[in-house]
């Protein structure tokens, strides 16, 4: 598309253009204006003299034109003539998210479809943070059964930011999103306004009450620990936010079957028996296991600081959980709690897709002071169900339209006009160079013409 050149300093241009009057005035004044003489014998005046005169006239006009061109080019150089970066006609971009597709009604989709006559539909892919793809709009909008967005930690801002970077100045961006919090996790990026937000409010799903299944496997020797654990779980059940279903299985009496394991979110293994292969396989497939010390290895008086709170616990006995050493040694581990002299109290292993929380103690006051502390149920809750609860919160969290629409004011106080001007200036050197070359060419041509048809010839013709 051909765009008109732009002058950055129009007032300067007008002032400079005023100088164009000078050569014209000089031309009009200096030219010994031909007198008009009415004569009856024009036929006797030879055409040779006429031709010579015509040539002189032509030369004078060419010279005048060259001088005008010289001044004009100078004026344009002064005024910074530039071609603006190609101005793209404003386009409308329609962006939809998977979540919106999943929740929008057919009517709403039809509205979007009607807007697509001269707009581009882009599907913001929730799988990757920067993902967006343009696909067949009709097919995209007409296809049924979009799954609601499940993944957490998806940052829609990133995708939008990435998309808007490629847009022209005047493009209009319509974004169709839902107000679910899980799409907006992460840092908020400054997205070029204005965005035309179409926010679909997804009602809170109240039917989905968060339920946690905890399977406790214990041996009779650890009946004491189970008592404390039961007490803590009962205390948790008083709270409305989370429902914990606890199943107690005495290892000695009943063997654990895999169906029970699959239902469980967590397995608490309170036993001095070594961990059997079934449980290891459960962990490897994504299960979560809490295991306590098999037997007391050391006794003494340690103080361990809990990273999640100011309180510290005293530990009187420490013991290693009965984990298979050959496997555990190779696992990635995370030391959660340690005593002040560096002994492990709580360790986290990642095994396969699951994890193991290894508690180098037991849930009895004989081993440590944790169970006697008032926040023991909450500590257990955050250790075991914290991540799950957070996930549930994200899924049910809603952002208000104001929160989504909020745009940060520009940080550096730079006006957009200035930005465009500086951008334009960076484009200009090529034009400046071209104008300069033209200026030099015109100047040379003017000099050559002026020399060739010098003043002597003019005087000769004028005869003055």
């Amino acid at each position, binding site marked *: 598309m051909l765009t008109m050149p732009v002058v950055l300093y129009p007032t300067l241009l007008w002032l400079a253009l005023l100088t164009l009057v000078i050569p014209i005035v000089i031309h009009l004044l200096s030219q010994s204006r*031909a007198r008009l003489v009415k004569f009856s014998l024009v036929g006797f005046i030879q055409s040779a003299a006429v031709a010579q005169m015509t040539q002189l006239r032509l030369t004078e006009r060419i010279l005048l034109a060259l001088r005008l061109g010289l001044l004009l080019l100078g004026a344009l150089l002064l005024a910074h003539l530039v071609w603006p970066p190609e101005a793209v006609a404003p386009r409308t971009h329609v962006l939809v998210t998977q979540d919106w597709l999943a929740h929008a009604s057919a009517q709403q989709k039809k509205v979007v479809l009607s807007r697509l006559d001269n707009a581009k539909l882009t599907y913001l892919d929730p799988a990757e943070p920067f993902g967006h793809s343009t696909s067949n709009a009709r097919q995209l909008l007409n296809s049924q059964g979009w799954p609601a967005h499940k993944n957490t930690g998806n940052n829609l801002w990133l995708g939008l930011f990435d998309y808007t970077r490629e847009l022209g100045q005047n493009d209009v961006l319509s974004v169709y999103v839902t107000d679910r919090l899980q799409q907006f996790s992460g840092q908020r990026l400054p997205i070029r306004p204005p965005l035309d937000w179409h926010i679909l409010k997804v009602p809170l799903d109240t039917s989905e009450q968060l339920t946690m299944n905890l399977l406790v496997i214990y041996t009779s020797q650890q009946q004491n620990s189970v008592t404390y654990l039961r007490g803590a779980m009962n205390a948790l059940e008083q709270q409305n936010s989370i429902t914990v279903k606890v199943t107690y299985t005495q290892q000695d009496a009943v063997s654990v079957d895999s169906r029970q394991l699959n239902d469980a979110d967590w397995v608490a293994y309170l036993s001095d028996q070594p961990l059997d292969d079934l449980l290891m396989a459960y962990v490897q497939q994504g299960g979560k296991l809490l295991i306590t010390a098999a037997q007391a290895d050391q006794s003494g008086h340690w103080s361990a600081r809990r990273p999640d709170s100011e309180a510290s616990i005293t530990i009187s006995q420490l013991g290693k959980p009965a984990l298979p050493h050959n496997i555990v040694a190779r696992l990635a581990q995370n030391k959660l709690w340690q005593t002040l002299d560096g002994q492990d109290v709580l360790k986290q292993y990642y095994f396969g897709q699951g994890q193991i929380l290894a508690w180098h103690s037991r849930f009895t006051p004989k081993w440590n002071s944790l169970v006697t502390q008032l926040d023991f149920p909450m500590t257990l809750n955050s250790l075991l169900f914290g991540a799950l609860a957070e996930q549930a919160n994200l899924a049910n969290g809603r952002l208000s339209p104001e929160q989504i629409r909020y745009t940060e004011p520009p940080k550096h106080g730079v006006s957009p006009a200035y930005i465009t001007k500086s951008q334009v200036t960076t484009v200009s050197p090529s034009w400046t160079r071209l104008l300069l070359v033209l200026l030099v060419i015109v100047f040379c041509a003017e000099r050559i013409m002026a020399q060739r048809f010098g003043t002597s010839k003019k005087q000769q013709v004028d005869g003055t």
Partner: protein
Amino acid sequence: MTQFIDPLTLARVKDMPLVAKTVAQGVLHGLHTSTQRGTGVEFSQYRAYEPGDPLGRIDWKLFARSDRYFVREAQRESNINVWLVLDASQSMLQISEKSAGQGGWHKLDYARYLLATIGYIAQQQGDGVGLVGLSSEHIDYLPARNGQQHWHKLLLHLSRVQPGKTFPKAPQIPDHLAVGQMSGLVFVVSDFHQQNNEIMDFVSSLSAPQTEVVAAQLCCDDELNFPFTGQVRFEDLESGQQRLVAAKQAKAEYLQAYSQFQHALDQQFQQHRIQCIHGNIDQPLDECLYHYLAARHKVGY
């Protein structure tokens, strides 16, 4: 030598009869203005016999009554008509730049005064005077009569002649101006700037055994000397054609072309036995007339 009157001075006198009389009297200085007498039908007067008068002209009846010899005289009768032909084409508006600045005459004005003066002289001599003004737009025709009143009518016509565009072409000229219709003396005033020799054709066609044609060619200083300098845009008076030239460069060639034109014109006049007088509108009017009349006396009119 006679003191001629500067044409610019005459140009300031707007009274045409006065100018004509002044010029004519200057030229005819010392000539009797009384009517010429001689033999004829119309009685004029008796005068005393003087030796040498033919005896046949003595009025014997009167001698019988008065016993003195008287000769009977009659008014001189003239059958000569003087025709004044004026070229009223656009090119006759040519005027020198110098005199233009001082309100001088252009060729047409000069021709009017010249013809008025000739008309006056002819009227004084008792000749009939007629006028023909010729231009492509309009043709003025005043038949030849004599008498003071007619002369005034002639002056009125002369002053009313409007310049047309060009000299009329042969088919446009009415029959009563054609060959042989105008007997006597035909006085043609023109610049003889013609496109297809139309003026010369007309003038030569007038020439006949009973008709004497005198052509007065008017020119001006600008045409003769080409005094222009610098860039000049010349516009042709008749065709409107323009030529922009450096005057100095064009001068030599112009003068050559002009002299060629003049030479060819003179040859044509000679060929058709037409007497030609050259009048320069920047020179005194009476000088031109004087030279003409002096030349005519030499040839014995």
